[in-house]
């Protein structure tokens, strides 16, 4: 039986790693082999030019350092997600790192793998922050060609 594909978008934040853990807990346990989904983890690494955003004369010198930093962050994120998968004994995982804007990268990954679900974390920004900072989860929810699951990390409220 063909398994449907589930793409999980990961970045450097706690929220997306929480989303990965939540997804594994609810969809891939206790028996990962019997799960109806095949897991694909996608990390969108922003390119150095978008991260720096400078066009001044000093930009060219800074870029190599920024690029190296981003690569380190990217590999750390991939390592962490591999650890989380191993901890839940999920073995059949495809991991991908794509360079570029996360919004487009995730939607393209969905099309490439013909996914049926895209899972993203959410920072839980309010309306203003979301408009200013931009929201990948918002964009994906509207533009991905498949169902989208947005996982929020519960806020630690003192009740």
């Amino acid at each position, binding site marked *: 039986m063909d398994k449907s594909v589930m793409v999980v978008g990961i970045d450097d934040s706690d929220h997306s790693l929480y989303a990965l853990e939540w997804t594994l807990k609810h969809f891939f346990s206790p028996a990962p082999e019997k799960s109806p989904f095949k897991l694909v983890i996608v990390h969108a690494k922003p390119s150095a030019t978008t991260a720096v955003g400078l066009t001044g004369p000093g930009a060219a010198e800074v870029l190599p350092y920024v690029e190296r930093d981003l690569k380190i962050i990217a590999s750390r994120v991939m390592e962490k997600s591999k650890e989380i998968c191993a901890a839940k004994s999920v073995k059949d995982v495809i991991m991908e790192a794509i360079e570029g804007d996360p919004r487009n990268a995730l939607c393209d990954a969905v099309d490439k793998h013909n996914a049926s679900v895209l899972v993203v974390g959410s920072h839980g920004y309010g309306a203003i922050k979301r408009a200013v900072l931009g929201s990948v989860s918002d964009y994906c929810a509207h533009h991905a*060609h498949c169902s989208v699951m947005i996982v929020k990390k519960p806020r630690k409220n003192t009740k």
Partner: protein
Amino acid sequence: MEKGIAEAFSSIPEGGGTAAIGAEEKKKVRVMVAIDDSGESFYSLQWVLDHVFGSRNNDEFLLSIVHVIEPFPTYMLPGAPAVFPSTSIVRSVNKAQEENASAILSRAIDMCTQTNQDVHINTSIIEGDPKEMICDLAEQMQVDLIVIGSRGLGKIKRALMGSVSNYVIHHAKCPVLVVKTPTTKSMSSNA
């Protein structure tokens, strides 16, 4: 003789004693599916039944199906002559809405029992603004996942007509799954 009793216990299938204790310790995963009149929301219910409840032990899940009735507006736009609908009209509209709601829910329950016999279901009919009611009810019932369909409106239509799924994504305190009905174009390309 003790050995004989021990052997008798070991022959009981594992689903008997230990599994029941395990289920009590584990908290049930609550999934709430919001249903209205549209085909998209029934598609989302079917999707959940196929993918989430498919191969798992269905004792762990509690499926809540919720239908929200929008209240009949009893006011008119400013500038228009102030005509209030008479109570008999309001009453008949309410009755029609309630009948519609129970028809929708029984369709949903039929769909569930056809796909999967063992799922625990409870249903609710609430009145009010769908977006707010879904978020409030999800918080009250402490659900783990809200499932909602998407009509696939474009940006402008969504801003003008309002989108329940958009509101729920932003305001719900728990994970939200937006199920999109595949368009006929994508379905024919897959076939």
